């Protein structure tokens, strides 16, 4: 028996959005294990982790489509629908970048020069930190809706976003240092490998960029 009153509330996008950022973070987190395996030459294990990354990325993708379908224009919400869809899109890109990086590395059976490996792992970890902080911020969405986007809850989220910004700045610094270190030794490398290593660094850095854009989107919601 369907009941009109029971359907007066559209499906709330809040819980699904929180679940989606959870998936995106879980996906990004795999990169630490992935690169550790790659650096140890355990290609079979790396390939397994890559499968897990693809599975999580697909799951996030499916959820993204589902959320979009459940947000018709007829919904009346405290924040613009467009802002929520944009937030969803950048959340999804965290998982996309993770998939791209792991795809290139596994596809080319790439190895990084030993000298920059510890530095690179640190860089990856910091990017994953940014994704984690993005998740922590998005998880405040339901409280934000309850508090009507004002007051103490807004301050709390603002401070979470500040922390996110500083993590992202840190990844930028690490990225620059990493590029400089690579530049020092690039002449000893196969040119094509060197180009791809630059690309890997670039794409990995985009994980933190996307996490930061998640923060920007949340900030826009706060200012409504």
């Amino acid at each position, binding site marked *: *028996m*369907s*009941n*009109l*009153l*029971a*359907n*007066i*509330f*559209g*499906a*709330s*996008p*809040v819980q699904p959005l929180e679940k989606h950022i959870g998936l995106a973070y879980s996906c990004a987190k795999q990169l630490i294990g992935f690169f550790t395996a790659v650096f140890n030459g355990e290609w079979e294990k790396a390939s397994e982790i890559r499968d897990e990354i693809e599975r999580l990325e697909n799951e996030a993708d499916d959820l993204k489509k589902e959320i979009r379908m459940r*947000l*018709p224009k*007829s*919904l*009346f*919400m*405290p924040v613009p629908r467009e802002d929520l869809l944009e937030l969803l899109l950048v959340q999804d890109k965290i998982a996309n970048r993770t998939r791209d990086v792991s795809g290139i590395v596994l596809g080319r059976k790439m190895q990084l020069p030993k000298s920059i490996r510890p530095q690179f792992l640190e860089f990856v970890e910091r990017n994953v930190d940014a994704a984690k902080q993005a998740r922590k911020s998005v998880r405040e969405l*339901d*409280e934000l*809706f*309850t*508090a*009507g*986007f*004002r*007051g*103490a*809850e*807004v301050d709390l989220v603002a401070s979470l976003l500040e922390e996110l910004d500083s993590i992202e700045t840190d990844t930028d610094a690490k990225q620059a240092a990493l590029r400089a270190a690579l530049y020092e030794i690039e002449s000893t490398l196969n040119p094509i490998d060197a180009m791809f290593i630059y690309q890997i660094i670039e794409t990995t850095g985009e994980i933190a960029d996307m996490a930061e854009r998640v923060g920007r989107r949340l900030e826009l919601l706060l200012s409504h």
Partner: protein
Amino acid sequence: MEAGIVYITLAALFGIFMAWGIGANDVANAMATSVGSKALTIRQAIVVAAVFEFLGAVLAGGAVTSTIRRGIVDSDLLGDSPELLVYGMLAALLAAGTWLLVASRKGWPVSTTHSIVGAIVGFAAVGIGIDAVQWGKVGTIVMSWVISPAMSGFIAFLIYMTVQRLILSHDDPLGRAKRYVPVYMFFAAFTITLVTIMKGLKHVGLDIGLADSYLLAIVIAVVIALIGAFVIRRIKPDPKAEKHQHFYTVERVFGILMIVTACGMAFAHGSNDVANAIGPLAAVITVAQTGAISAKSAVPLWVLIIGGGGIVIGLATFGRHVIATVGEGITQLTPSRGFAAELAAATTIVIASGTGIPVSTTHTLVGAVLGVGLARGIEAIDLRVVGKIMVSWVVTIPAGAFLAILFFFIFKTVLP
């Protein structure tokens, strides 16, 4: 009148049918708010509804009952053929009851008030004559159908704004909730008791002076607020659940408040909507017993019991499924939002009851929910569904009228 017993028996049966429909549709919708927000279980909701519907009907339902009974049809025109009013009221009861049954099965939250008023206007205009309808009064009633949802929406908007500003947007929402929720309880109890004392009790034969009315309302409200404050003080934070949802314990405090507003809601509903079933029944009884229309007599107790009893049966048989369905669908209406909606709706309805205007509980409640939504309190409201609900409201009036006209002519031919 020799056929009197037949008329009264039929009217009683149709009255129970109509009351059953009210319980199944209207009351269920009203109580679902409290069940959906988990302030009450279904069983508790049925008990609350049974007690407070009854109290509302007896203590504050008099004015609306007389509107339904005498306010819509101009009985002067019926002087020499009072049986027309009997056929008409029987037809109206059966028509409204049938429409409610259809609507309940289809899941449309229609208004029992719209269906009975539509039915009475229908049989009077077609069966007796256009002039038999007191159009001025009907105009006021129809206006109130637009005003009451708007008014309750506005009140709900204001209430929820204060909740956000005073409690939810603070560093220590729990402490603020414990401090302010008893104040909301006071206001809820104060408004409802005051209107009841000032407007309703006259019909029960009690007449209390203005100053005493205020004093009595304040005393009752303070007692309720104190009991509430005592219960609230015993709520302890649950750190594990808090970690998942910061407002977990705050919502539990509002849950206590919602028990008070749920009682108010059932009371308000009883004061307004029971009349839809017992008003026509009372009209039939007067004619059948005295053979005249204008005789003014109090509504017999057994009629009230039929009204109250029918509603409880409707609620317990069919309504509990409606409560479960609606309750599951409206989980977004947490206690902090649900109480704002309920309090606004109950206040609006009780004021309408006091002035004798039959409004729709369901519409008033939907208006209140939209008001909370406008205060940015609800994550998402589906405007398409709101549109469909409004269509079902509009369709109800001609549907009730058409069925009533049909039954009227059948009764006119069949009955003695």
